[in-house]
């Protein structure tokens, strides 16, 4: 029994490594992505902030910084879905299914590997945001990193679940496009919760949106005076992020273990 567990753990590590190795070959890509994120924050962020006049003592730029980082970790994590779609197209998923590895281990390995990759990918951008924000309490940094990682695991799990359920490049394209367009815009990434509350359907959509939970949770940690502009109490936001990670990791594991068969990609 013990030998089986060790073998399972080794398999899991190998699958995680497989995702991480892909990141290693993308050094230039990461460098360029970091550059244009910095450009976005320094050019678009500072300029759009000059337009905003919302409330006394409200600095839109600080508010925007943590929101835009949330949208970045979301986009990088959801992009794993496109990679899985490419792998299906190229027959790599079939190769993975043929490996002498338990399907649950394979699914968990992909979720963990994809989320660790996404997390490492965005780490330089996180450091840049922290330099700009200059947090009052450095102890919140490890807490925020855990929340960011859990959020990433949830989004990667969601992307894998969607792609492997629909098994179609076209359907993946449209679903991911629509989800991407709506989740970022119907969240507190760019606007405070009281602004969203002026249009109730938008506000309720934002409340159940995981992107809102992470961006508001990061704001509560690093900009505690902005708690009045957030949607839910921090405990609820954190619970939502943990639920997202556990729920979608389980769902991805279920789909790979019980539903997924080779072939049939459209």
């Amino acid at each position, binding site marked *: 029994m013990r030998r089986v567990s060790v073998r399972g753990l080794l398999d899991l590590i190998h699958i995680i490594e497989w995702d991480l190795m892909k990141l290693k070959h993308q050094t230039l*890509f990461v460098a360029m992505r970091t550059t244009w994120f910095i450009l976005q924050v320094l050019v678009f962020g500072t*300029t*759009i902030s000059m337009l905003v006049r919302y409330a006394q003592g409200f600095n839109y730029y600080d508010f925007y910084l943590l929101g835009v980082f949330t949208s970045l970790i979301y986009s990088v994590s959801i992009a794993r879905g496109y990679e899985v779609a490419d792998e299906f197209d190229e027959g790599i998923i079939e190769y993975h299914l043929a490996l002498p590895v338990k399907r649950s281990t394979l699914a968990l390995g992909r979720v963990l590997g994809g989320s660790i990759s996404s997390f490492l990918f965005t780490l330089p951008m996180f450091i840049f945001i922290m330099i700009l924000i200059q947090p009052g309490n450095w102890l919140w940094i490890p807490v925020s990193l855990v929340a960011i990682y859990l959020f990433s695991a949830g989004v990667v799990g969601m992307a894998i679940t969607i792609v492997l359920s629909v098994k179609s490049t076209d359907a993946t*394209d449209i679903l991911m*496009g629509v989800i991407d*367009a709506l989740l970022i815009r119907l969240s507190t990434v760019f*606007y405070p919760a009281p602004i969203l509350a002026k249009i109730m359907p938008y506000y309720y959509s934002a409340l159940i949106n995981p992107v809102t939970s992470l961006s508001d949770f990061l704001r509560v940690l690093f900009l505690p005076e902005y708690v009045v502009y957030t949607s839910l109490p921090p405990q609820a936001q954190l619970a939502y992020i943990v639920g997202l990670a556990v729920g979608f990791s389980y769902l991805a594991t279920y789909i790979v273990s019980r539903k997924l068969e080779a072939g049939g990609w459209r």
Partner: protein
Amino acid sequence: MASSILVIASRDLKRFWSYKFWLAGQVVMNVADIVIFGLLFNNMVNRSLIPDYIKFVTPGILSLALFISSFSIGREVGVELRREVTDYLLSLPVSRLELVLGRFVGGAFRGLIYQSGFLVLAMLLVGQPSPAAWLVIAYTSILLSLAMSGLSIALSTVTRDFNLQATIRSVVYYMLFFFSNIFYPTQVVSMRFGPLAPFVAYSPLSIATTLYRWGFGYLRDVDVVSNMLLLGVWTIVLLILSSVIYLRNLTRRG
């Protein structure tokens, strides 16, 4: 010559429809920019700078929609280069100039067709253009779509590495997008960019957005002729440069 160019362009246009799902996603994103981002941001902007953000941003979204759809051809040209489909294209019974112009026109058609729905939306949200203004809008759309299609094609042939191609396109895309007046007005551009403000105000996307804002009646005091001439100069320069780069890279090995 014109028929060869049209044949090449129609091939690219047909392929555009095979991306209907990608297109649907783009439409959702652009509409969401107006009905979600615009509507909510309208409650936060300084009214002395922008009295109505939806009316302000809608012509900007017209530029953005045209830009994104014209730029989409670059990805396919990049894939062709990697898979050596370019050898097949070079063997077609058309001259190289016809091939290059056909590709540019194909990209421009995509932009114009994609943008047409947003023109109707702009009419509903911003205002009804006069017949003369429609001519200016048509001129702006044709030139901008040609310039962006050419630029995207040229950039995609700089390297055969797919990731690098995508990254170069994205960097240029974001540079043009951030350093433009799509989301912010001239006063803010002047405050933020100081001596560099004229470079932002006279980038191709900014000129097109200014002309659209004038065309739909959001702006009144615009030097339309100068802006049109400048957009013409931009388009000619970008098309010449793009042709040279694309022609050179079409026949380059390795």
